[in-house]
């Protein structure tokens, strides 16, 4: 096992800048998820760690060793591909033992390690099968098995669950997490699915347009998104954003919406009277039927059994509200909603950066 240190790494394709000055330290044994929309550079970064993409500038270390010019085969890493990339002409056992065989490991040892990994993944009965004779989920496991047999310094995952159906994806998610808790191998996991990121990561790295937006624990990112992008990307249903104008009088600070309704915000925030801001409120932080004065008109109701999602209009903008329990309200109704000052995230609309309270 080893740490991974990425220092000022850049990637250009000609004049096109795919990654600009990425810095990231991944601790030994940590499970880090790189997340972002497609084209954000997360896969490129992973492939650079793997050695499959050249590094235009900067430095990547695995452990203490600078690996910029080390061939993939000598980096002591294992990678699980989105397509699984199983060797179609080899059976499961050969697929899993291929890397050991290339290292000229003794046959008995290969046999033992493959057997142990297969058992752990429930593949022991499929060892003699060819990949085409397996289901999608089984293939995914073989790809995992091929990685763990090697006992590498670092595991790299490139959207390994994207090709599975929803139910299996949730199941494999848990399995990969459990596996990591046992093996404690440093892992870098790329996904575009923020739920996967939230559920699996020790730390999440949110990327956008080749730039790291924020690095933090899942709940850190959820509770204190650094900017509008992270705020909108993390959480499902996503955060509601409303433009507002700050009005400050003495100790009270309010954000005034375009239709004149006001929401109280944290008075310690560094905002001035008359300043334009964007406020963000998570759907579950909006209280339904409180005595508060805010009024929202219901457009669509989505009953989920345990909870209900309301899509409403507030100050002419769509606002999603997530409430526990069920409702007998109807679309077209107007309902009272309440928002606590502490739950309102405030952003600078020009820069997109979060505005924090004075220290």
């Amino acid at each position, binding site marked *: 096992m080893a740490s991974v240190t990425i220092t000022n790494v850049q990637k250009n394709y000609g004049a096109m800048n795919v990654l600009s000055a990425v810095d990231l330290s991944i601790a030994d044994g940590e499970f880090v998820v790189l997340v972002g929309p497609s084209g954000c550079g997360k896969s490129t970064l992973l492939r650079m760690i793997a*050695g499959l993409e050249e590094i235009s500038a900067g430095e990547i270390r695995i452990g203490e060793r600078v690996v910029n010019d080390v061939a993939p085969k000598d980096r002591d890493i294992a*990678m699980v591909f989105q397509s*699984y*990339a*199983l*060797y*179609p002409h080899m059976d499961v056992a050969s697929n899993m033992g291929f890397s050991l065989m290339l290292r000229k490991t003794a046959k008995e040892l290969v046999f033992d390690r493959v057997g142990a990994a297969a058992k752990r993944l429930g593949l022991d009965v499929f060892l003699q099968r060819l990949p085409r004779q397996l289901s999608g989920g089984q293939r995914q496991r073989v790809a995992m098995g091929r990685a763990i047999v090697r006992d590498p310094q670092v595991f790299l995952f490139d959207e390994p669950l994207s090709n599975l159906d929803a139910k299996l994806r949730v199941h494999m998610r848990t399995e990969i997490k459990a596996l990591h808790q046992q093996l404690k191998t440093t892992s870098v996991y790329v996904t575009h699915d923020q739920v996967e990121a939230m559920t699996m990561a020790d730390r999440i790295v949110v990327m956008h347009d080749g730039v790291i937006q924020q690095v933090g624990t899942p709940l850190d990112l959820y509770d204190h998104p650094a900017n509008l992008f992270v705020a909108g990307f993390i959480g499902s249903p996503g955060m509601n954003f409303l433009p507002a104008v700050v009005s400050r009088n003495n100790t009270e600070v309010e954000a005034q919406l375009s239709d004149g309704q006001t929401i109280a915000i944290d008075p310690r925030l560094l905002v001035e009277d008359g300043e334009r801001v964007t406020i963000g409120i998570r759907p579950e932080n909006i209280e339904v039927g409180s005595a508060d004065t805010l009024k929202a008109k219901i457009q669509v109701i989505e009953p989920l059994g345990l909870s209900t999602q309301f899509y409403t209009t507030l100050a002419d903008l769509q606002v999603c509200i997530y409430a526990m329990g069920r409702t007998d309200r109807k679309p077209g109704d107007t309902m009272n909603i309440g928002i606590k000052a502490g739950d309102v995230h405030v952003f600078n609309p020009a820069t997109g950066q979060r505005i924090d309270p004075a220290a």
Partner: protein
Amino acid sequence: MIAGRSRKARILGSIGLYTAVAAYVIFALFPLFWTLKISVTPQSLLYSEGITMWPSSATWENYKTVLRATDFPRYFLNSVIVSVVTAVLVTIIASAAGYALSRFSFRGKTTVAVILLLTQTFPLVMVIPPIYRIMGELGLTNSLTGLIIIYTAFNIAFATFLMQSFFDGIPKDLEEAAMIDGCSRSQALRRVIIPLTLPGMGATLGFVFTAAWSELLFALMLISSDSQKTFAVGLLTFIGKFAVDWGQMMAASVLALIPACLFFGFLQRYLVTGLTAGAVKG
């Protein structure tokens, strides 16, 4: 099977399908049957019996004459040498070129591809005079080596595109996975890519073999002595000044089919597609 269709409709569908296939097979194989039929018809019955599906008496006489009394075995051997060497050479070169075109980006890649394509666009007849002159200067007329060189050159372009498409069909991920697993690029090529490309190489080998085997134009222009003739040229020796010896010509043709059939019989297992199924998602 489509649910909801009645048993009767399904049977009728199958009958229709097989009838169509059978009709096509008959259409395609009938000329071959006719060749076979004439090759076993005695000379005396060839013009006297009218059109029949099978002669009233069959004979091996034509085959005996072809094998014993003509230079045909020599032509035959020449054809085998030229075709096999050409097929192997072209497959090796085209595989290497196809792999490069499929996997690497290098300066002049587009130019190379366009030039390869250009060579396929003009009629061969046009280039025969210059080629004849070049080969003459090089002392390669009337030689099998000369034929091999020309056949190789003319088949490489198409074979390269064919091989490129086979390499394109193999996911890049497989190579990358192999490289992460501990292969160098050449090991990945040898252990993962080539085993998966064998059907493509088989197809290319078969294609080039057939092309070289039946080539007439260049062989006719460049070869003059009996000892260097390929069978396609040799077949013409059965056309005399006053008569065509149909029986012997057809017997020779049937014999010429045998190596091609054997060759494809041997290649068949490599031609089975779908070997890459199961590599990636599905």
